[in-house]
């Protein structure tokens, strides 16, 4: 279970919420409302005051890289640094390679794509591969930032289905998505972030950042 207590992420008010095992929290809100910053803070990629527990263990009790191998953040714009995707899936275990094959077929990707130069792949293919990369070593929590933003409706439906399987397998998922999208329908809980409190807006408006069940 992922539990967040008084997490302070600018420009949002301190937030507290919990995502149970096998639950999905969908975060919605206009761009610039702090969705990405919230996910990055939960992954401990940016310093943020407050407490974050995974199964009762606070993030500061374990090292940062250990936390992020359990609480996996996948950015909206996937980044690759190797020539082909194959390098990201290095594992000597046969079971890992079988899992990789299953993940690829779940997103309608051919195994051959692993050996094609990343630069020649389409944005959608790269995004699907990045989702697979995030799931590959089976983290306990998935923090997915717009995982279907570059996908057509067919591929987005497959991605939503794959994420649903992850939830059924007992992972906690926090995902940002557009309203009415296939992924948005996975929500057990919803978090609506308000527009950035600008000079004219009332800052207390952002206090609707309480999850609705």
């Amino acid at each position, binding site marked *: 279970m992922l539990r967040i207590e008084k997490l302070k992420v600018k420009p949002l008010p301190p937030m507290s919420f919990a995502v149970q095992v096998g639950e999905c929290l969908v975060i919605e809100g206009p761009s610039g409302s702090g969705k990405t*910053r919230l996910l*990055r803070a939960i*992954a*401990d*990629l*940016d*310093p943020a005051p407050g407490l974050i527990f995974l199964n009762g263990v606070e993030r*500061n009790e374990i*090292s*940062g*890289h*250990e936390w*992020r*191998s359990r609480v*996996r*953040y*996948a*950015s909206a*714009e*996937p*980044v*690759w*640094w190797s020539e082909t995707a194959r390098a*990201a899936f290095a594992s000597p275990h046969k079971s890992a390679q079988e899992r990789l094959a299953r993940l690829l077929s779940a997103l309608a990707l051919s195994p051959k794509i692993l050996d094609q130069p990343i630069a020649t792949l389409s944005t959608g293919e790269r995004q699907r591969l990045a989702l697979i*990369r*995030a799931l590959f*070593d089976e*983290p306990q929590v998935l923090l997915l930032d717009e995982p279907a933003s570059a996908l057509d409706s067919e591929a987005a439906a497959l991605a939503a289905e794959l994420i649903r399987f992850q939830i059924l397998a007992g992972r906690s998922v926090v995902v940002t998505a557009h309203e009415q999208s296939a992924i948005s329908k996975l929500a057990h809980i919803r978090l609506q972030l308000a527009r950035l409190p600008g000079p004219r807006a009332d800052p207390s408006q952002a206090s609707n950042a309480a999850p609705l069940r």
Partner: protein
Amino acid sequence: MTSYVPLSYVDLAIAAALVALNGAISFAYSLRLEKSLAIASLRMVVQLAAVAVVLKFIFAQISPIWSLLFTIVMAAGAAFEIVMRQEHRFKSWLPLLLSSSPAFLAGLITTFIALAVIQPSPWYTPRFLLPVLGMLVGNALSGVSLVLDSITSAAHRERNVIEARLALGATRFVAFEDSLKRAMRTGLMPILNAMAAAGIVSLPGMMTGQILAGIDPIEAAKYQILIMFLIAGSTAIAVLAAGIAAVHFLTDERHRLRLDHTTGAAKN
């Protein structure tokens, strides 16, 4: 064997005439280099004259304290110059000091190796200690400056890659692996090139100087070889230590990328 030929001030004036020619060309083609040329020439003359006076004093003292003090002042000047030229500098002084001190230490260690080999007596004879220490620290420093520049620029330019790797559970050193390797290669490139080019493309400065001073070319080459190896060694140590220190200070104890530790940080 010819011996050392002293220069008169008239000789220097003749050489200076060439710089004046340079200035004339710059003026004729409006390259606008006259001013920089004049300032640089003047600086060079004043600096070298001042150093010569100081060296003369130190050589007369034959004291390790004076030699060490002189090197520290020179190296500190070089370090400051180098740091100021970097695009993304560390904000506080501590990381700066900790990442440039490898050059001093590596230079110092290898200087003792040199002294153990050359065995001047006493070991701190400034005539040996100063040039060797100066060359080693100087080369290590320029290697360190290349490493720091390369790795801080890489952290800014490739922040997405580094953060993506961190997000996948990599430690800071794994996330910086490629940038660190590239930075270390960059830092070692000058000495590798110098070694490869020595004697073919250019005669190394120290060897040239010794030959001008009337030393047998074979002996001068032996000294140059010794110094080249020591420079390679001290630069390698300094470059490695500075690279590791830089990764350390570009991140924090939670293995997060902290570009806010450097100047010119982009806000996310």
